[in-house]
């Protein structure tokens, strides 16, 4: 049991980070904290992709004489795209939070909800 955990520690770390992020998104009422949670959630996926690219005993994927086993660079390239998407999402999310703050004067979900109800 212990071996499974230790051998695949990066996957376990990914799962823990994923759940931590996901829980933050669901449980927090503060809009900025939600975005932070979302970010952590996405980062866990980056970690997961980087992990699956690793080949046991494989070298850095740069062609060199005498090396026959390379790690797979494709997941890393994929996740580069996903990181860019993540940055764009965070930027847009925070921009919305700024606008919400201007319109409501608060970034707490409950307060916003109350203000909309009282209309």
């Amino acid at each position, binding site marked *: 049991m212990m071996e499974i955990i230790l051998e695949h520690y990066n996957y376990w770390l990914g799962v823990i980070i994923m759940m931590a992020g996901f829980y933050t998104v669901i449980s927090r009422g503060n809009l900025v904290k939600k975005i932070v949670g979302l970010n952590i959630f996405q980062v866990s996926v980056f970690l997961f992709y980087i992990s699956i690219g690793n080949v046991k005993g494989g070298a850095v994927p740069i062609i060199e004489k005498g090396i026959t086993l390379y790690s797979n660079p494709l997941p890393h390239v994929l996740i580069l*795209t*996903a990181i860019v998407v993540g940055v764009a999402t965070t930027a*847009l*999310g925070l921009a*919305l939070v700024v606008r919400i703050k201007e319109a409501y004067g608060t970034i707490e979900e409950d307060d916003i909800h109350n203000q909309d109800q009282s209309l």
Partner: protein
Amino acid sequence: MIESHLSLLMVVLPLLAAPIVAVLPNGRLPWAVSTLVSWSVFYLAAWQLMNVSTGHVISYELGGWAPPWGIEYRIDAVNALVALIVSGIAALTLPYALKSVTKEIPQQQHALFYAAFMLCLTGLLGIAQTGDIFNLFVFLEISSLSSYALISLGKKRQALTAAYQYLIMGTIGATFFIIGVGLLYAMTGTLNMADLAQRLPELYEHRTIHTAFAFIMVGFALKLALFPLHVWLPNAYTYAPMVVTIFLAATATKVAVYVMLRMVFTVFSVSFIENTPVDELFLLLCVMGILGMSFYAIYQKDSKRLLAYSSVAQIGYMVLGIGLGSVLGVTATLVHLFNHALMKGALFMAIGALVYRVGSSRLEHFSGLGKQMPWTFAAIVIGGLSLIGVPGTAGFISKWYLVLAAIEKQNWLIVAVILIGSLLAVAYVWKIIEVLYFKATDELEQKNITVKEAPLMLLIPMWVLVLANVYFGFNTELTVGTVEQAVKLLIPGVNE
């Protein structure tokens, strides 16, 4: 060879148009360029559909990299139909946008609005065209990010919270999707859909594949607003600017349904689904969604929100077809995908015309408008009949196939649900019609304030869609003919 380049051009054209439109001076120019682009894209989509409707498949290798290593655009009848819906609705929404957007969005934001609209169109068309699941994720995010921005442009401040809510849920959905894609890649080493379909069958027993499938399904259930993951949709549709509501209601969820079809039937297969609880789960959620959301729609006080809940119910009908997992079921899904775009497009455009004149989408402000705006009222009546599924309208055709599919499976409960759903649709459509036609005109109009009929720029696109609803209710050659071709590709080995 030129034909495959044109398939790529459909995605590249609006992508290139977006930054150009963004830097154009505010005024009519950004609108004109966007409209021109959407019409040329529509032309390309129609041409593409003609090309593949015979069963021919267009394969385009991006940058000349051969699949499965490079990204491949693989166009068959299914993609072509979805691309036609998206570009067709865009080509009708943009002429409508000129008046509607001027009224709802400040002048200095027009160029950026049309740029975001072009990006959204790029994303949706990209999803429809691509044959690579990671590429699909990228296009999904292009369309999602731009639609968050578009929704947030609504006049009321609730538009901001609606966009925020959609952003959170949409991103969770998309992230679930890439987790699934990652697991599939880890198991098979490929991202090409056709290649995945070949490599997956021998791994069907593997738990990782089941996990991947679950992640992808939940991710897209969020995106297509399958009950109970629909919470973002009513707010987003209610507070978004009218043009955005029309466009998203008629295309975005349809594209997500298409992806689900692709995943379930092309990447995975019917034999895989039969060993998972997914089909029963879909049926259960759809039944709850159709009944619950139709019922909810009846009690809405805002016309946009009413139609939004109706949309969630209608999505239930589409996924129902997937859940039935038969040739007839998938035919019903695809036919309804097309027809629902027509009816919701027409209805939201008609509501938009009322909003254009009254400045509010709440039902109480619509009292007596039916007599003052007869053309808009007639559009709502015909669109509503189509939504209910009255014979002679497009809605009837899709309901007919759905009922046939349910009868074929001897699932009488589903048959009953479809019929009850239609009855509930009568109730909520009637609610709009009653307010428009039978409610006494309120005080404002007693003081002799008359409301004029909507301008022609709003009426023409609206009536094109209304007439399409009637046309496709009688002539099913284009829809059902193409769809049957498409279903043959989705569920191979069907004995005719």
